[in-house]
């Protein structure tokens, strides 16, 4: 059994309580939600916080999916399983269900949270790629109030976010636009593994042309990456296999994969292309299916 170093533990009873504790304890404290990243790191002694602030009791306050006409708001303590099972969310953004189906396994999904996934800032993390694809924004709360940042601002590098020591991520906001759909494609060595590469796509049509499109990639750069070059190339064009091919090639050019146990950089670049193509194709097919 791997055992963590000594750590003090307290359960937060409210967001304000959690932030108060963070303010008092500073950088020596870590929040723990699902714990599926932090606890293994502690057991391997890659992380040794002095204090753990357990925020699982905040699920009542921060566990929600609110689908509104112009915006979807998801609380940071929403569990993977809730994202997977929400029909309402899948209706607006099927990419969430696509991704959740290939995130880890049911045991992890029962416990792991949206906020925890994003704050871990693993370059291979699926929900980060989803939020990047959808152009989500992150609501960060501290002692002096809330601030809202884009996904690009949120990530500062591998395992690094804009959330400061005495702050916590409380909500994700995703803008809703008409005639859109989305999809997520992931290649993994084995079910439950991190992605070798994954690609999310979101497309909005207007009169048969692409009004806007976004592509987000995971595991091919320091953070999950949203590709503006791809969006620029797709806007105003009619969806076609050639266009997807072109978008895929742009995605492959724009990413910076490295060779590791999951695969060679070359293969990952190939996947970035192939999966971008597939995700775009599926997004458009979904819009057309809906009519």
């Amino acid at each position, binding site marked *: 059994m*791997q055992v963590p170093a000594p750590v003090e533990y307290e359960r937060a009873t409210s967001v304000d309580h959690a932030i108060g504790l963070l303010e008092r304890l500073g950088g020596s404290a870590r929040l723990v939600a699902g714990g599926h990243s932090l606890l293994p790191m502690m057991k391997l002694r890659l992380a040794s916080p002095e204090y753990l602030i357990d925020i699982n009791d905040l699920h009542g306050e921060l566990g929600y999916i609110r689908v509104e006409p112009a915006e979807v708001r998801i609380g940071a303590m929403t569990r993977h399983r809730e994202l997977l099972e929400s029909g309402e969310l899948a209706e607006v953004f099927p990419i969430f269900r696509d991704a959740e189906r290939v995130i880890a396994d049911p045991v992890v999904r029962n416990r792991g949270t949206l906020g925890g996934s994003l704050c871990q800032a693993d370059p291979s993390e699926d929900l980060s790629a989803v939020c990047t694809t959808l152009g989500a924004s992150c609501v960060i709360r501290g002692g002096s109030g809330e601030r809202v940042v884009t996904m690009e601002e949120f990530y500062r590098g591998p395992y690094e976010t804009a959330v400061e020591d005495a702050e916590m991520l409380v909500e994700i906001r995703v803008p809703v636009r008409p005639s859109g759909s989305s999809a997520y494609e992931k290649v993994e060595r084995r079910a439950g593994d991190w992605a070798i590469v994954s690609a999310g796509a979101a497309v909005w049509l207007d009169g048969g042309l692409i009004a806007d499109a976004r592509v987000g990639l995971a595991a091919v750069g320091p953070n999950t990456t949203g590709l503006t070059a791809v969006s620029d190339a797709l806007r105003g064009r009619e969806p076609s296999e050639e266009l997807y091919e072109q978008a895929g090639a742009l995605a492959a050019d724009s990413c910076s994969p490295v060779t590791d146990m999951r*695969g060679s950089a070359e293969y990952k670049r190939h996947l970035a292309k192939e999966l971008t193509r597939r995700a775009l194709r599926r997004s458009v097919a979904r819009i057309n299916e809906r009519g």
Partner: protein
Amino acid sequence: MTTTDERPAGFEKNDHKPVGHGRMLRKEDPRFIRGKGRYVDDVQLPGMLHCAILRAPVAHARIVSIDTSAAEAHPKVKAVVTGATLTGLGLAWMPTLSGDVQAVLATDKVRFQGQEVAFVVAEDRYAARDALELIDVEYDVLDPVIDVRKALDPSAPVIRDDLDGKRNNHIFDWETGDEAATEAVFASADVVVSEDIVYPRVHPAPMETCGCVADYDRIDSRLTLWSTSQAPHAHRTLYAIVAGLPEHKIRVISPDIGGGFGGKVPIYPGYVCAIVGSIVTGKPVKWMEDRSENLTSTGFARDYIMRGEIAATRDGRILAVRTNVLADHGAFNGVAAPVKYPAGFFGVFTGSYDLQAAYCKMTAVYTNKAPGGVAYACSFRITEAVYLVERIVDCLAYELKMDPVELRIKNFIQPEQFPYRTKTGWLYDSGDYEPTMRKALEIAGYDDLRKEQAERRARGELMGIGVAFFTEAVGAGPRKDMDILGLGMADGCELRVHPTGKAVVRLSVQSQGQGHETTFAQIVAEEIGIPPADIDVVHGDTDQTPFGLGTYGSRSTPVSGAAAALVARKVRDKARIIASGMLEVSVADLEWVKGAFHVKGDPEKSVTIQDIAMRAHGAGDLPEGIEGGLEAQICYNPENLTYPHGAYICVVDIDPGTAQVKVRRFVAVDDCGTRINPMIIEGQVHRGLTDGVGMALMEMIAFDEDGNCLGGSLMDYLIPTALEVPDWETGFTVTPSPHHPIGAKGVGESATVGSPPAIVNAVVDALRPFGIRHADMPLTPSRVWDAMRGVPRPPV
């Protein structure tokens, strides 16, 4: 307790036996299903302390100094022990199972990342682990030998400078077969095909890691060791030899074991550390390694770099097979195999084919990697042998443009040739290969699959059909040929029938999940007519069971299964004499039917085995010269190994865009002779097939150039889940072993041996449109994609 009559035609009906072989739920499962198994880590003793081991962070370094003072000052720490301490006790080095020595704790150098350097004994597991952080070791880092192909370069650093006069990294050269005769056949053959084939390093990765609880009693100098051991008796003897403790004062108990696969055959330094910890502190000491320690320091498997060559006539008659192997044994030669077999049973690389000649030359070397070569259900290296021959036969089929099934059938050893002496000296006991192959073809619908493949290929889809046919050699072994460190590979068995007709059978082999408590009760039941539910099976405790070498290499049923049948027959022979007295007839006038003796021609006049048991222990007279009681003990020395065989067919689909392999179907037809409990056999086969998917598609213990192990967690070292495997389609044929008392052969490892070549052959078959003849495991998407582009790479 129900049994069914799934008895294949052609061997003895058990109409005259009331109970015994057949499909039956496992007796041990209620406790496992309810979470009531008792594993080593469940052992809690009063005052028990905990041991944690400090391991080398680098692959090769000289130890300059170790400062343990801060760790010793930790309030919960009871002892800190280094290699220097052990040197004082004469315990710093221990023999391996193959004539080498291995450091218990490093004294001079560390030789692989993860090697044991020091240990701490503390009041709890957390404190023990915390104290490791307080030990300060200064290392002088040396260049490591990681690339096995460079291990014998004159410029390579010498890893084992602890060995007198050692000036290189060479361990042994080994050969088998006839080099000149093989060369002659190759020189005149129509067709010669050669291929470089790597079987990468993998790990058994059992659910339960290794560990023990050592309890040394200073008053009567007695050591009790609860241990994750596949061979408790052999371990006891080795502890006696290594530690100088008298053998009768050592008791080794293997309680429930959560998987072994060969990885729990060796004695690891951690066991010795816990024993020393208990001796030093006078308290029981528990050591349980964590997952990373298990993956990085305990016995690996495979790691053979092979060149395979095959010679044949133009029309597909295979003439000879030749191979050259470079074997990576890591930092210490810890291979678990009978002493005279440094390459295990790799000599069966001639496969299931009638050859004119065969030859193998092997060189084994040291590298700065974990020691082992033990394990992973390999039947002593038969996994590598079968993979080599089944891959190279497929390469030949590719070159001859022959169907791989047709090529195999054309070259099978024929039934009338058994017992068959191979060109490398193995005596295959029995086999009838073609019906087994035909059955697999029938279940798979082989011809239709080939038609479907042609249609799919025309559409640009990648579908592959892979075939493998294996012959295994299991049940080590005849004591004239086989021993481990001088201990003969025979196994004992003791049977006692209680007065009320219930029984206890005591085995020298130890289950790690194989279902011994059921299978062995069935074997005895079949012979003596007591229902399996009334027979208790005791195993895994050296104080409770007769001596024997334990469970690995699929040897339980071939060796101990024979012992169980024979001891039951011995008891039955005595029961017959007692029955003759009870029925007042001569022994020759008795007939044994359904658990009772009756007078021939008068079935009404009978006594059951239960009646006899009561009489044997009762007050009445027994026949002249017969002692009371109804029990016997034997030690079984197998005449030969048993040679199960099987035909496996795998169907895969590969996504042309992502190169992901999906195993769509897998048909496994096994022939393990007499089938004692078909349900347990199927379970064993399912396990091995799943192993095969892991090895073929994802498993590998890799190292970077500095010798850092890249497979140190189950996030990095992948093992397959239910989502990667298809619904297994199993079948069987029955060719009994002629020398085994009940005709049974081992089956535990057959599927692990047979499935990797079937899967790889299927993947390579799917890639045929790309002109691919071979691609090495693990066939991860990235590596398959390389192959699709015509640049398949070896994994090391």
